[in-house]
């Protein structure tokens, strides 16, 4: 502690805290164990979903009618099938040995069946497939579907956030910087849209333009982004107004910098902290919105699937095949947990007002 090379130290060997906002924020974030864990989990999810095409997983669309509704297992689908028959035989044998002679023909029949199952398994190369997280009602691999579902959910979240942030920054910056009538007008619009029930508008847009295939995802982006830039616009506007009269802006202006230049070179970097906080908090909320729509059948359409679609499919047979619900639900929940912890951590780390809080 006493010989911190490269770090500013005063006469008392105390570290001088003249570090930048970002270094300071990072230092605080690193101390927050839950936020760090969140960061790691989010990072792991991001890597897995990005690398999905090169991961050794099955195709998430390929259906295997002989493998429907298999539970999670480390064994191959073939050996699960054989095991199932063998188990039945052992059961029957127990009954027969206990005096139920009437079940003997049944047992023999199934014994014969076992042979044919074994033959099938040996013949069919697909029997060697291992479904770590089970399969769904069409015999699709839940692992692959969950990973690809995450890909779509996260994509919606990221693109939605970026669009919302961009629109929000531009409108907020214009309103805040221009002030006067334009500001009034833009903020009236924001107020009015705020008054509208956000999710209902998205549902209407989805209902109107919802078609099959990839275009529905695009519509979804547009619908979510169209109604979600409001908060960021307000925040950016507020920040800009409070910064507008700050000294360093005056300095830049007196040195002949133009309006646009001032906004983008000076004001935006100053509002970046707030924007980051909002982005991390809105990413999970976009994911929730998308899943919400997909759950209602108004989101992405087959064969693409998001976490919401998977959960909604899982609900159908959850009594008999609970893993179909639990696997995507758990994946989604863990991700949202991680995002929330990360978002909270970032908020504490980046909020200058919390600087001296203990």
């Amino acid at each position, binding site marked *: 502690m006493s010989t911190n090379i490269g770090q500013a130290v*005063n*006469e*008392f*060997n*105390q570290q001088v805290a003249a570090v930048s906002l970002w270094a300071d924020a990072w230092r605080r974030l690193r*101390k927050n164990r839950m936020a760090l864990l969140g960061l790691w989990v989010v990072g792991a999810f991001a890597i897995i979903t990005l690398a999905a095409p090169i991961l050794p997983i099955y195709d998430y669309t390929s259906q295997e009618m002989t493998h429907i509704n298999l539970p999670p297992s480390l064994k191959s689908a073939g050996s699960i099938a054989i095991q199932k028959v063998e188990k039945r035989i052992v059961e029957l044998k127990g009954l027969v040995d206990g005096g139920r002679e009437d079940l003997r023909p049944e047992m023999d029949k199934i014994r014969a069946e076992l042979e044919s199952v074994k033959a099938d398994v040996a013949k069919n190369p697909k029997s060697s497939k291992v479904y770590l997280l089970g399969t769904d009602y069409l015999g699709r691999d839940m692992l692959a579907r969950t990973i690809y579902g995450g890909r779509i959910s996260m994509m919606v979240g990221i693109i939605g956030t970026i669009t919302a942030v961009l629109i929000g920054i531009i409108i907020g910056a214009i309103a805040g910087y221009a002030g006067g009538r334009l500001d009034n007008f833009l903020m009236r619009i924001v107020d009015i849209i705020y008054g509208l029930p956000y999710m209902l508008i998205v549902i209407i847009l989805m209902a109107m333009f919802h078609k099959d295939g990839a275009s529905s995802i695009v519509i979804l982006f547009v619908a979510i982004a169209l109604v979600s830039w409001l908060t960021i616009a307000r925040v950016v506007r507020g920040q800009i107004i409070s910064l507008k009269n700050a000294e360093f802006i005056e300095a830049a202006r007196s040195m002949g910098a133009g309006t646009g230049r001032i906004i983008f070179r000076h004001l935006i970097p100053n509002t970046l902290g707030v924007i980051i906080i909002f982005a991390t908090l809105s990413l999970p909320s976009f994911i929730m919105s998308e899943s919400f729509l997909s759950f209602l059948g108004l989101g992405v359409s087959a064969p693409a699937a998001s976490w919401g679609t998977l959960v909604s499919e899982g609900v159908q047979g959850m009594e008999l095949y609970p893993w179909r619900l639990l696997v995507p639900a758990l994946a989604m929940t863990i991700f949202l947990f991680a995002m929330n912890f990360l978002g909270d951590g970032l908020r504490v780390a980046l909020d200058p007002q919390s600087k001296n809080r*203990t």
Partner: protein
Amino acid sequence: MTEEVILRVKDLRTYFKTDEGTVKAVDGVSFDLHKGETLGIVGESGSGKSVTNLSIINMIPSPPGKIVGGEVLFMDADLLAMPANKIREIRGNKISMIFQDPMTSLNPFLRISTQMTETIILHQGLGKDEAKAKAIEMLKLAGIPAPEKRIDQYPHQFSGGMRQRVMIAMSLSCNPEILIADEPTSALDVTIQAQILDLMKDLTARLGTAVILITHSLGVVAGMCDTLCVMYAGRVVERGATDAVFADPKHPYTQGLIKSVPRLDVASGNRLSSIRGQPPNVIDLPDCCPFYPRCDKAMDICKRKYPAVSRFDDGRSVACWLYSEEKLP
């Protein structure tokens, strides 16, 4: 001012555990307060003045703070060792406080009447109506016009100066032995500061209340206080009668402070001297005089050990190696 000591602070230590390390906000503070005396505590911001006084009535927010040592004897009872219900009978009753920012020190959601009478009812056992009458009387004493009407208003309907008057009225309503005023005028307009100080001086003199006046302005101390403690980095560096300290400051820090006060009787044109450098933060300070980097008279020993307190015949005490008997190599 009599010789009877009503408050004796002995070697008070209050530390805060923070992420960065242990903040020794108050580290061995001692002083006596006599009946009816006005004691000034001066020092730069962060020197531990507020923490000292919150420690006296055992109101340090914990965690992160903790009073790790010392005694506070009020009429021979140690306030720091008292159970919670006993010290509550003293707070607001025998020892009351006024804080720096009158805009935030009153509860914005409650009427002045509610906030004033609750203290009176609690400590004096008066009924509601009597308490209200007493509150109105106190407001009148504090110079609030039309107190009968004003008492039913909310704090936001008062200006800053008026709110501080309300605070003064409230804090004196139970006729306390000691009034602790923590920078009572720092947040006010200069024109109002003098009025508030005059009011305090006048009322406490009339009621015979001893005052601990925290301030960072030596001018205020000169006008108000009988005795004076100068604090630096959590310690009292110099203590003595106000006149004596002003006439002959001994600690280099006190000397610097007094030199930096603008004086009307000395020809202007000379630049005001100010103490160079920044006060240290009080986290994990090594054993040394915390003032040495800013001190003109720093010696080798100052970097290695905190000076012991030297006492003088006139009751002054100074913590500085310049006056230490104990000469180390």
